[in-house]
């Protein structure tokens, strides 16, 4: 921990890291009180939590079609709803460390192929039954079944065996993976009694709040779980989640005191909202990023010079300023940023360089016919505007980039991963291995740039089983360089999670894992 603190302080000096970003990471390993008061001023974490009251959250990103099955959860409201009632076996802390949850400890063998998780004793499900290692194993089996519709199927397929040994769950993999605990912190993998096989949508779990009523797309009501195994969370008597998809109604609800916290503030109004009385706007740079992706196996994008010409012809800072209104970070054509553990910042930052772009474009021998970029509003917020800015800066470099706007309807089925050049977004993953394995390994299902580099693949597999952190960081650095130079990814920006809460809320801290404090807003805050 000492090293990490030193590293943080160095970074603080070297990179001018934001106060909030620093506080989030420092708070996570308990250094907030000391550092917070001496270096940075007072911190909310120093306060003693109070209990009581009913928290009302106004959340966007929910639909009447949402299911309570954690395996099918794929949007903000189901994510937050499931966080109330369910637990994973481990969690990722705001600084990217693994924290115990339903598993109180775990260990791996030397090559990272066999992992043993010791399941906490004395934990009760909401229906009164006891949590057993068998429940955990059954949950993992449900999500790893090849007929499963679970969103975690991809990450669970690496498991070759799931066994129970007393209070332990033993997971075996064909190839070692030093990041397995990170994969198991996936929000789909909530432990359910009997694995949730009989009734996956029962919403019975071990979480801080019990489901009282659920109306998908409208309202979810929870009451405090009196038998919660974790005393350091769940300070409210109850939680009410009201689905408010309209951004204006959401902010009005917060301003008028109808709800205590809201998610998904439009960057364009965030600055204005932060000036409103009684409203605190918080932003944290996460791992989510907005991208333009080229299929590296399809003409003309199979030409490396052309790909790099396009990469040098986009003005990343302009996009961050105009599309995100400053609420975000500049991307560097790799899907990884400083929010990831083992991030290597030695990679050169690609800037807008029209001359270099023009040179590369000439070298590519492209015939000068229009290069079509497909984009829809739904690709990411502001995608069409971003594409038009890209078009202008590219045309200034003499690249005939044409923006073709297509409807949101069917975008993810007919355009993304189908057309050779389009806009998209990624929510990010907790660790580099998972991000790269999900979308840049040549055999990955979601390899949306059709990236196929044997050296990159080999490095990825090597890094996965490498338990020495320094060596691993080095391997990831090599991969980043390859992708930066060869890949089909144009990553102009990483977006912030922007939330807001009212004055009544205390204890808010930053968590780059996801919006609403990584989903823990209702668990870890309290009424002042």
């Amino acid at each position, binding site marked *: 921990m000492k090293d990490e603190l030193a590293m943080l302080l160095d970074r603080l000096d070297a990179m001018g890291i934001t106060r909030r970003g620093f506080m989030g990471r420092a708070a996570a390993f308990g250094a907030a009180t000391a550092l917070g008061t001496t270096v940075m001023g007072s911190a909310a974490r120093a306060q003693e939590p109070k209990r009581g009251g009913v928290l009302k959250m106004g959340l966007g990103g929910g639909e009447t079609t949402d299911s309570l099955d954690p395996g099918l959860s794929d949007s903000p409201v189901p994510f937050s709803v499931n966080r109330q009632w369910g637990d994973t076996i481990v969690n990722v802390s705001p600084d990217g460390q693994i924290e115990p949850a339903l598993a109180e400890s775990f260990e791996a063998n030397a090559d990272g192929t066999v992992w043993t998780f010791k399941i906490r004793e004395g934990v009760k499900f909401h229906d009164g039954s006891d949590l057993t290692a068998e429940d955990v194993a059954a949950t993992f089996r449900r999500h790893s079944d090849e007929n499963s519709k679970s969103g975690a199927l991809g990450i669970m397929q690496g498991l070759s065996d799931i066994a129970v040994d007393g209070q332990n769950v033993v997971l075996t993999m064909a190839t070692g993976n030093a990041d397995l605990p990170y994969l198991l912190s996936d929000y789909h993998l909530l432990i359910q009694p009997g694995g949730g096989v009989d009734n996956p949508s029962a919403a019975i779990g071990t979480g801080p709040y019990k489901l009282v009523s659920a109306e998908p*797309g409208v309202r979810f009501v929870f009451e405090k779980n009196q038998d919660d195994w974790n005393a350091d969370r769940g300070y409210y008597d109850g939680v009410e989640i*009201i689905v408010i998809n309209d951004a*204006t109604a959401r902010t009005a609800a917060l*301003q008028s005191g109808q709800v205590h916290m809201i998610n998904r503030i439009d960057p364009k109004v965030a600055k204005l909202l932060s000036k409103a009385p009684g409203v605190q706007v918080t932003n944290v740079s996460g791992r989510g990023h907005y991208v333009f992706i080229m299929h590296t196996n399809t003409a003309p994008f199979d030409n490396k010079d052309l790909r790099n010409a396009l990469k040098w012809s986009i003005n990343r800072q302009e996009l961050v300023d105009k599309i995100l209104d400053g609420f975000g970070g500049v991307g560097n054509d790799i899907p990884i940023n400083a929010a990831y553990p083992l991030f290597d910042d030695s990679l050169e930052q690609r800037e807008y360089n029209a001359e270099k772009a023009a040179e590369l474009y000439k070298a590519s021998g492209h015939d000068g016919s229009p290069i079509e970029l497909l984009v829809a509003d739904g690709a990411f917020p502001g995608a069409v505007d971003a594409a038009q800015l890209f078009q202008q800066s590219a045309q200034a470099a003499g690249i005939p980039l044409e923006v073709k706007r297509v409807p949101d309807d*069917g975008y993810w089925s007919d355009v993304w991963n189908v057309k050779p050049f389009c806009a998209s977004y990624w929510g990010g993953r907790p660790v580099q291995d998972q991000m790269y394995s999900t979308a840049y390994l040549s055999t990955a299902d979601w390899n949306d740039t059709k990236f196929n580099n044997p050296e990159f693949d080999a490095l990825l597999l090597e890094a996965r089983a490498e338990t020495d952190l320094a060596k691993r960081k080095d391997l990831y650095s090599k991969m980043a360089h390859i992708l930066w130079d060869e890949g089909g990814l144009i990553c102009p920006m990483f977006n912030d999670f922007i939330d807001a809460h009212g004055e009544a809320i205390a204890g808010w801290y930053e968590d780059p894992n996801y919006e609403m404090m990584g989903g823990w807003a209702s668990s870890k805050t309290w009424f002042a």
Partner: protein
Amino acid sequence: MHPILKLVTQRLALGLLLLLAASALIFIGVELLPGDVAQSILGQSATETALRNLREELGLNEPALTRYFKWLFAALQGDLGTALTNGQSISKAVGERLGNTLFLAFWAALFSVPLAIVLGLIAVRYRNRWPDKLISGITLSTISLPEFVAGYLLMYLFTVKIRLFSPISTIYSGMSLGEKLSAIALPVMVLVLVVLAHMMRMTRAAILNVMQSAYIETAELKGLRPFVIIARHAFPNAIAPVVNVVMLNLAYLVVGVVVVEVVFVYPGMGQYLVDHVTKRDLPVVQACGLIFAAVYIGLNILADVISILANPRLRHPK
């Protein structure tokens, strides 16, 4: 058979036929949309395996025609099926949503219809003078304002500036009538503003039309007060066109309020339908489509019947 009874039966039969046609059109429409329910559910996270599994489970591999007739026979037996996306019973979900929609429509109609007619009468009484121009001016501006703008304006005024009402109109079982009414105050206001002008203008035009008749002149000559002439002699003869417009607007209150529902987060049919259209959840879209079509057809039949009842010549055909 009484001619009116015969007419109603005819209309009802025709209405059923129309419903059948509507269900076929909805089915074709959703089938034509790009992507299917499996792709819509999985979105960006779709893999070939996941898609295959989901399609299998949802029975999407059968031909479209088979699925349509299976659905049709079940619907004829009163079973609307379950939503493909979240497995919930459609009848139950639609029932609650329809109740909410009708609740909102009822209160909006309760205020807007009498208001529109009274304003229409006043406008005729003072036609081409300032009250007429004022009423027309105001109602025409409110109808010209998009609903969401009106919604946001009212929201800003009554929730942020004056904290009188709630900006979110979520209603749920367990709320008292008073709480519910307070929750829907703003959407009701918006809806009243939106439908007022149309009905008011039609009332005004229809009565003005009648005002040219000889018997109105007679009434004037025998010294009746202008307002009595309008309300007692002219209005009853102008009911037919007014009823038609009122019914159209009532139908609009039921089927066309999705924007208002979204702005005020009201759990009605519109929002439910839109969510399921984007997910290509055919059974739900079919069910909602049928209900909406039935509302339109039903209200139109009602309008026809009322027009006939209001007109002695039609009531007693030779």
